[in-house]
């Protein structure tokens, strides 16, 4: 056995594109906008982009963890709706109560998803499909289908207030990014999560409580979604269970995958996920700013997703 056979010397071009492709794409898009979009570099504009991407980043973080275990969670949008529907009901008892209740809703949904996946053994996509359909219905039932205006100043501060010159939303999202990155890198839970995604059977035999890890991951994902839901309410200053988080699961999955996390599990790229979300946000912003029609926007998004994922795809290594 030679050392040559053991040491894989990654050549430059091979490793570079998959790892840093997203960031390169962001740079390209920013350069384009600097050249062709008026007022792009203004702080107020960058601020808007960060604020708009924050909820997607938060949901995508949870999604990245789930995808890291070789799963997928379609129910995140419905969780957001549930959280949104619950907030006006409990706002009377104070912001803290409302937030806690909406987080509890996330925990409950996450438990259901997790148990269906880990204990019942359902395929993640189907297990979460049930709550994808039913969860939003439940949110509508809770809110009687009615949009409710939210006029609580503390909550509104979370959605549109500033702290040290940065919007609260951005602070919260950044904090959650750090927390999730920390969880993945430094905690027992994070390492186990990656092992489960890499080879569930082996991890189970190694004596790792796989089911507990899986349930934990789905709970975490749903809690992050409910945070996104409550922030969405705070931002639009109203709770509308029928539209909050609509189709966000697809945006989140796209962000995760474009960010270089493979759908096959065993790997989670937290910063990549943030970059993926940012890239998709910039694409949409660019389209809007140039007043392009939906047809063009959608086709351009399709091409960008394909190019980004093609660049970041896993080379076959077997």
């Amino acid at each position: 056995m030679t050392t040559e056979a053991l040491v894989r010397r990654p050549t430059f071009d091979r490793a570079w594109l998959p790892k840093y492709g997203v960031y390169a794409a962001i740079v390209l898009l920013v350069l384009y906008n600097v050249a062709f979009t008026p007022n792009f570099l203004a702080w107020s504009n960058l601020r808007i982009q960060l604020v708009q991407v924050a909820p997607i980043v938060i949901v995508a973080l949870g999604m990245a963890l789930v995808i890291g275990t070789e799963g997928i969670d379609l129910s995140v949008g419905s969780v957001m709706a549930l959280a949104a529907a619950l907030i006006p009901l409990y706002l009377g008892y104070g912001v803290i109560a409302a937030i806690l209740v909406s987080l509890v809703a996330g925990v409950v949904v996450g438990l259901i998803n997790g148990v269906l996946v880990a204990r019942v053994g359902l395929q993640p996509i189907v297990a979460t499909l049930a709550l994808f359909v039913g969860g939003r219905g439940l949110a509508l039932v809770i809110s009687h289908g009615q949009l409710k205006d939210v006029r609580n100043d503390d909550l509104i501060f979370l959605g549109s207030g500033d702290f040290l010159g940065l919007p609260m939303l951005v602070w919260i999202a950044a904090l959650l990014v750090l927390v999730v990155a920390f969880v993945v890198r430094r905690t027992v839970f994070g390492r186990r999560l990656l092992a489960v995604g890499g080879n569930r059977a082996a991890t189970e035999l190694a004596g790792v409580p796989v089911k507990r890890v899986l349930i934990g991951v789905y709970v975490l994902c749903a809690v992050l979604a409910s945070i996104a839901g409550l922030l969405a309410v705070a931002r639009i200053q109203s709770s509308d269970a029928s539209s909050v988080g609509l189709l966000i699961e697809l945006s989140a999955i796209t962000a995760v995958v474009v960010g270089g996390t493979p759908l096959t599990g065993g790997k989670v790229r937290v910063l990549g996920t943030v970059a993926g979300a940012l890239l998709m946000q910039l694409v949409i912003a660019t389209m809007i700013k140039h007043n392009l029609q939906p047809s063009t926007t959608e086709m351009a998004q399709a091409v960008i997703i394909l190019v980004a994922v093609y660049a970041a795809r896993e080379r076959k290594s077997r």
Partner: protein
Amino acid sequence: MPILEVTDVSKVFPGVRALDGVSFALQPGEVHALVGENGAGKSTLIKLLTGVYQPDGGELRYRDEPARFATPMDAQRAGISTIYQEVNLVPLMSVAHNLFLGREPRNAFGLVDERRMIREASEILVRYGVTTDVRRPLGTMALGAQQMVALARAVMVDAKVVIMDEPTSSLEPREVETLFGVIRDLHARGIGIVYVSHRLDELYQICDAVTILRDGKVVHTGKLAELERIKLVSLMLGRDMSAVRREGFTGFAGDHTGAADAPPVLRVTGLSSRHRLHDISFAVRPGEVVGLGGLLGAGRSETIKAIGGAYPVDAGEIEVGGRTLKNPTPVRAVQAGIAVQPEDRKAEGIVAGLSIRENIALAVLPRMARWGLVSDRRIDKIVDTYMTRLRIKASGPDQRVGDLSGGNQQKVLLARLLATQPRVLLLDEPTRGIDVGAKAEVQALIDELAADGLGVVLVSSDAEELVEGADRVVVLRDGAVVGELTGTNVTTEALLETIAAAAVSSEEPHDN
């Protein structure tokens, strides 16, 4: 005039030169052994011959003409049949569909004639000693039977060349005999055969010629009969003959002293599981290696998994160090001091995508952590310890385990088990598919661990290994204990006799 020939082919994978200027020629009617350490390039050469890979340079000639196979299908059509090393059948599909995939008999409308296919499949398989309902999913059959299906599939077409990459690694002696019968038959019909195996006995039994690969290069080729066994090993390993002679073939040193009167560290009583395990009892003392013998499907793997909490148990008791293990799950078993090395390294052992470090630390993360936060310093310490102790060859602890050779993967797996500081080690086929060098190292390691006072349960289909490694052998058949060999009785002959006797008695009507 060779029937299949490559000259000066190379194959480079990113970062690895798997083959380097290899020439190889197969004569018609010849059984040609291809040997070498793990990672020497045997499978790669075979894949080049059969269109799975395209060579980076050199020439491929088949039946005296330059050839190029774009896909395995092309090679198959041209008359080259292959049994690849990794199980190459589809577990969810039925046996018959696997056997006939791509060449299903068709009726007048061009549709698959299921009935004929099932009939023919049953007929064909009987000749290979497989009598089963061919409509069953292949995955429900024992590995050996699956291997026989693969063999039947390869041979049933009118092949000019048959290539077998480690066909016997999961066969029992009787099945090996069937295989050799088939090979002799092919040989007689003038068909060229390439045969890869790490079991040297087999090579000398069946092969005419040999080509030895080392680090992707041919280091020797010629008649096998003219090559002394010890010489072959030294060529393979690239070491002095004298060194090889000194070290011997197995790494086992002999008996373990084991405190003969110490209380058992593991005691299994009346272990039963629906349909598969029936009232299995045995005990292991610290420092003792207890072998589990039996044919494929005897229930050895299930026994081991059941003790490890990974196989449902209906009745029975498992005691570790005098304490009963209640409601065993893998988590509880590990906590109690049981470490299981599963049979299927790839599927149930390693996490291929993670690094050596992560794999070794996987089972002991909580111990390496405070308040749920892992300490890389502590992890590095144990990873270092075990990489040194087990002589794991890698570029470093960050290397992906999936990129290691089989032997080193096995050592990583063992390192993970040892890191849990177990009291009992359950090893299921610890040396399957690893080369002589690595095998000896793993065997030596088992000795060492027993000497350290661990109780070891060893499962091996290699009778020689079992007999040399174990102090006692418990023989299983159909999920029940049918005998036990102790002391001087631990011999290959006695083992085979016990198995055979049990086979005879169980075929007689039984009443209890």
